[in-house]
């Protein structure tokens, strides 16, 4: 993974000092509350319902065991011994003290971490595929490009006060695991007659107005990535709406201008930057790519005896292996996923001890690195197949062996009304009620891949629009209700879900989900996935089923 040099380290330490000074001036009454809010947000610090919330950046979800141990220490020393992984592959602390945040940032800087631009109307943490570098369907490793974008966007002086937040994702695979089409800008690795480059999407997004992004550049040679992004951001910074925060995302601008005109404007601006100093040099591309090398794999074969025997003899291990282990490009290796979706624990939550356990397990079995996924899970990307059974035992010891990756109970869920001051309704108890309702593992396996996404408000942090089943908390005269939608997808066939109809009380939600699933099971053709059945029969049968009951 990327390692800081003296420049990176100095920049991040200077940022800590700058923020410490800002905090001290705020506490001394020299910076007004509203202004300090904007300043602290650029370091990921919110003031929430019950306490401040600090969002720590995990650039494109990649983190080392040393960094995990530091996070464990921080949650223990400065918080309440747990953290929450988010859909931007970050970690949130729920109970830090505002006065101590500079100290937390200093601790983070000591392991090459930070909370830079994890909030505020600026370019946020760039995300990419949790299987980067090991996926079989990958064109090239997307992480060097994510790192190059990270550096370029860090403290970009011109784009620190955009109309609204700005999210960039990079994808390199046929199968889209990063929801690239619902990002403000999506960067897809591509090639043209053997020349490496990108296809660029713009104007996707969730929130109040969910939109799938449009292609604004069919092919961009790789050295032009940063100048092109600069051009796109400049057009957005100048012309994005600022009069209404709900119409301020780039998707509204792209739609108002039309994607064609927006693309034209970007291209005009880009012509003034093209081949300028920000054009990537081959030596810089080589330098950054040099950090994402293939680990020292041992030569071994697929399906070693020790694995085959374990799969035959241990049903629980087999269940976990079936759901949580994915194919690796290297023979004899596998991708092992830790689903942080144990019933009774808020989705994405980890304790300090679990963070340390994951660090130890990563050191022992996966070259000391893990990835955080936008589905709020953890990936061990480089595990010898012969070690999977031993690794699974270790996970069981730490209650990290939930065998439900990609199943209905592996929900994306925002912190909701339990923590977030923006939320209209709670989301964690809804997730738990669904997990309790659907506790029959055979039934879940029969349902197969099925994504339920839950957001506590229109801001859509839980990506409800792109869940196969989406649940949105709404406020009706001070009461919490839930609007259910069906048919969303966040993969390469991205789609925005259709709302079924009037919303439901919280206690009704599990039964509504049950009805939707019953309709699916009645109508599915062979082993057709939920989303395929939906695409074949449409929303009406689900409406009829749910509202007829």
């Amino acid at each position: 993974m990327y390692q800081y040099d003296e420049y990176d380290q100095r920049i991040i330490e200077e940022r800590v000092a700058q923020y410490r000074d800002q905090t001290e001036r705020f506490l001394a009454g020299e910076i007004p509350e509203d202004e300090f809010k904007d300043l602290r947000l650029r370091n990921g610090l919110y003031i929430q319902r019950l306490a401040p919330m600090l969002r720590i950046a995990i650039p494109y979800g990649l983190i080392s065991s040393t960094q995990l141990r530091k996070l464990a220490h921080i949650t223990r020393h400065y918080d309440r011994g747990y953290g929450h992984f988010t859909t931007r592959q970050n970690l949130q602390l729920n109970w830090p003290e505002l006065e101590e945040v500079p100290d937390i940032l200093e601790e983070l800087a000591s392991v090459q971490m930070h909370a830079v631009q994890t909030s505020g109307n600026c370019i946020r943490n760039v995300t990419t595929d949790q299987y980067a570098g090991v996926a079989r369907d990958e064109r090239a490793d997307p992480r060097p490009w994510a790192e190059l974008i990270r550096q370029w966007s860090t403290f970009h002086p011109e784009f620190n006060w955009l109309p609204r937040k700005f999210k960039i994702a990079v994808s390199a695979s046929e199968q889209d695991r990063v929801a690239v089409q619902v990002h403000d800008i999506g960067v897809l690795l591509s090639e043209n007659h053997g020349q490496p480059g990108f296809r660029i999407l713009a104007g996707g997004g969730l929130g109040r107005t969910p939109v799938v992004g449009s292609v604004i550049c069919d092919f961009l040679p790789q050295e032009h990535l940063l100048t092109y992004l600069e051009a796109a951001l400049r057009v957005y910074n100048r012309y994005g709406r600022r009069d209404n925060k709900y119409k301020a995302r780039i998707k509204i601008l792209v739609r108002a201008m039309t994607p064609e005109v927006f693309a034209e404007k970007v291209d005009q601006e880009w012509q003034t930057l093209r081949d300028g100093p920000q054009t990537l040099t081959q030596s810089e591309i080589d330098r950054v790519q040099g950090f994402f090398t293939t680990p020292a794999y041992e030569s071994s074969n697929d399906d070693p005896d020790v694995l085959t025997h374990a799969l035959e003899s241990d049903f629980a291990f087999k269940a976990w292996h079936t759901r949580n282990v994915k194919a690796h490009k290297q023979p004899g290796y596998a991708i092992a996923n830790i689903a942080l979706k144990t019933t009774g624990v808020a989705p994405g939550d980890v304790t300090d001890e679990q963070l340390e356990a994951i660090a130890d397990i990563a050191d022992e079995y996966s070259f000391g690195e893990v990835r955080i996924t936008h589905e709020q899970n953890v990936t061990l990307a480089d595990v010898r197949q012969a070690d999977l059974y031993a690794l699974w035992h270790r996970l069981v010891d730490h209650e990290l062996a939930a065998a439900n990756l990609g199943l209905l109970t592996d929900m994306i869920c925002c912190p909701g009304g339990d923590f977030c001051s923006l939320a209209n309704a709670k989301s964690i108890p809804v997730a738990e009620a669904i997990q309790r309702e659907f506790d029959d593992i055979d039934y879940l396996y029969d349902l197969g891949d099925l994504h339920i996404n839950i957001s506590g408000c229109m801001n859509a942090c839980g990506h409800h629009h792109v869940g196969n089943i989406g649940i949105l908390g709404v406020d009706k005269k001070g009461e919490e209700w839930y609007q259910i939608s069906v048919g969303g997808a966040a993969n390469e066939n991205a789609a925005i879900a259709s709302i079924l109809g009037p919303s439901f009380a919280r206690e009704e939600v599990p039964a509504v989900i049950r009805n939707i699933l019953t309709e699916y099971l009645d109508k599915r053709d062979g082993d057709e996935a939920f989303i395929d059945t939906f695409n074949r029969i449409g929303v009406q049968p689900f409406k009829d089923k749910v509202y007829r009951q």
Partner: protein
Amino acid sequence: MNQIIRDQSIVETDYQIVTEVSDPGIKGQILPMNALLEHIASLSGRRDLGVWLDADEDVEELEVHLDQIDVIALNFPMYNDGRALSSANILRRRYGFEGEIRAIGDVRRDQLEQMQRCGFNAYSMAEGQDVAASLNGLKGFSHSYQAAIDRTEPLFRSR
């Protein structure tokens, strides 16, 4: 008394912002862009003009007149409105404007460093800002990842 920060020090400015224009020919005025463009024919011999733009006005409209302009002031309606940062970038980088670019409006200490990177060299601080203390706001980072106006090469070119 009209103190601004210019080129890292506190100075008295000869150029004043004008909102209601009576005689556009008076020296030392920073005219609204509309007024300047309206009267530009009568100001044809001048090389010392001042003009200010609001955040939603396009600097492109000034392009052909830039050789007559000494001072361009760009308004920040709110400290958290970043449009003028792009305007400054375009003036310096695309048009090579070498005169004064002054930040006006809600200009606060913690924004100065970014303004400086984008091409501003003068700052008329918002009411209530401690002008002397604000000089500290110009102290930036030792290195910058990206190319901007103050550092025209990105960090990677010197790595």
